[in-house]
């Protein structure tokens, strides 16, 4: 009698161990699957990056970086005007986005309760989800259609709209994370709110704000869609923002969908430049973020 109950118990034990073994196998397979998915996502990036580097590196030389595009059929030429255009348009966009974004961020951080700030946050979130092409249409309607004239400035305006949501929300949070005691300390020393904000709070929040700014610049660096009907592109050196202007990502797009192999080769070169710029900006943002986390009191 006793032996049979012992047998039953050991059978149950064996069964339980078998179940455990099965569960462990599942766990191992599952973990492997999850690892595989993570690696797959990273591998896609490496595949795209690797291919762009392999195809683009041959096109990159001094002439490519500094010369105007040559007409179809004439070998050589470069994207110098596009690079200059990118700098000009992104520079103007940044110069417009920083004050508006920072002021709105300060407003939300300092006066941030009640229906109006909530509405503003909602609007900001709405804006961050609006496709860039729709924002391009807005820039067209405001700055191109009334003047009957494509212009680099209208592209900067669209870029600014694309940068704002990230700047607003991040500067709000960065200013909020500056401890209240820092602010009160400044006020206690007799500083006005203005001086306390500008001299103490914002500098403390600066690394986080700079991170957001770099990420926002990275975002618009690769942005092509709104340029199609704002900056429009140009074959020449153009430094006046009131005129149509070349831009690197726009040139890549134009060259990529052209049927000419020489242009397609240049598209790969331009793509490599774009990716390098975006990678540098993203890594810079990362480093900046690390600094900001080190600074938090």
């Amino acid at each position: 009698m006793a032996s049979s109950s012992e047998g039953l118990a050991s059978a149950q034990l064996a069964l339980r161990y078998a179940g455990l073994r099965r569960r462990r196998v599942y766990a191992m397979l599952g973990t492997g699957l999850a690892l595989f998915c993570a690696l797959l996502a990273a591998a896609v990036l490496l595949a795209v990056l690797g291919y762009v580097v392999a195809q683009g590196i041959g096109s990159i030389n001094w002439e490519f970086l500094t010369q105007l595009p040559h007409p179809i059929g004439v070998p050589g030429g470069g994207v110098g005007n596009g690079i200059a255009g990118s700098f000009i348009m992104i520079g103007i966009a940044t110069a417009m986005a920083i004050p508006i974004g920072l002021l709105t961020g300060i407003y939300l951080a300092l006066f941030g309760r009640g229906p109006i700030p909530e509405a503003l946050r909602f609007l900001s979130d709405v804006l961050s989800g609006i496709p860039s092409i729709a924002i391009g249409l807005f820039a067209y309607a405001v700055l191109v259609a009334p003047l009957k004239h494509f212009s680099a400035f209208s592209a900067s305006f669209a870029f600014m709209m694309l940068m704002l949501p990230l700047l607003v929300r991040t500067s709000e949070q960065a200013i909020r994370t500056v401890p209240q005691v820092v602010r009160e300390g400044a006020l206690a020393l007799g500083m006005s709110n203005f001086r306390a904000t500008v001299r103490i709070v914002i500098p403390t929040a600066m690394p986080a704000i700079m991170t957001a700014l770099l990420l926002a610049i990275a975002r618009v660096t690769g942005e092509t869609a709104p340029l199609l009907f704002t900056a429009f592109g140009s074959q020449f050196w153009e430094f006046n923002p009131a005129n149509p202007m070349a831009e690197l990502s726009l040139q890549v797009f134009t060259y990529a969908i052209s049927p000419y192999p020489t242009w397609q080769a240049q598209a790969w070169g331009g793509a490599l430049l774009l990716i390098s710029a975006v990678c540098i900006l993203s890594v810079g943002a990362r480093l900046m973020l690390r600094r900001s986390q080190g600074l938090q009191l």
Partner: protein
Amino acid sequence: MDNLEPRFRRVARFVSPVDRGFAAIVYAGSILFALLIIGLFVELVLGSWPSIAAFKFSFIWKSEWDPVSNKFGALPMIYGTVVSSFIAIALASFVGIMAAVYLSDFAPRWLANPLSFLIELLAAVPSVVYGLWGLFVLAPFVRTGLGPVLQHVLGWTPLFAGPIYGVGLLTGGIILSLMIVPTVTAISRDILVAIPRDLREASMAVGTTKWEMAMRVVLPAARVGIFGACVLALGRALGETIAVTMVIGNRPQISASLFAPSYTLASVIANEFTEATTSLYISALIELGLILFFVSMIVNGVARLMIWSVRGSDRTA
């Protein structure tokens, strides 16, 4: 200061002329910001008004897109946008969520940080670069490799029938899925990390394996937020322009086959806006932009509510 009257406290905080001026500038900047967004909406409505007046709701369900005879129906583009985005989210959600589970619960620290960074970098790769890669690498692969295999196995369904051009709905969907995987992964990982440690410890304490803990305890707790992350990624896919324009074939037609060329709302605007001649044509294109505006506003709003319900609203998604 806390026991002051609220009204008096406000005066006390910004009492000096410098502070008042400062407050005024801050208000002005915020008002400008609000005006820009409201202006965006108003301009899109004004710009599309001729088209709205001419076609009413038939714009959405008519499928004829003929600029020459001034007939505009957006149905083929709505179809192309929706189908390519759903292919994208179908492919991206599983990989993205699994990657997030790995990063939040299984990866050793030395691997988690570089992997997260690589996947986030994937989000920063410019759209036009994906388009270029899609056009010269993915589209030929779909034409000669993936397409024929799919057709061989599943060719009896209308989804995989017909000629394979390389460019088309499927290629557009695949490119979009690459572009939205980082969104799904990054937000899902943030949500999973925010799930309280207690739940994990309780699960391990009753003897589950770590995998069972992740699947049966952590993921269900994060369910709503992760669904929100997928919806947010869907919103990005719906509005994505340049990469899709380069690989979807740009033909306003509705075809059951995923190999067939198609068109999306955003790519019609990108391709045709500068060539639009009549004012009705331009207005119809702006109305496509207005549709995109509304759709992405609704999709993003829903997604954010879901994400906030799990993670709190203190981070930008």
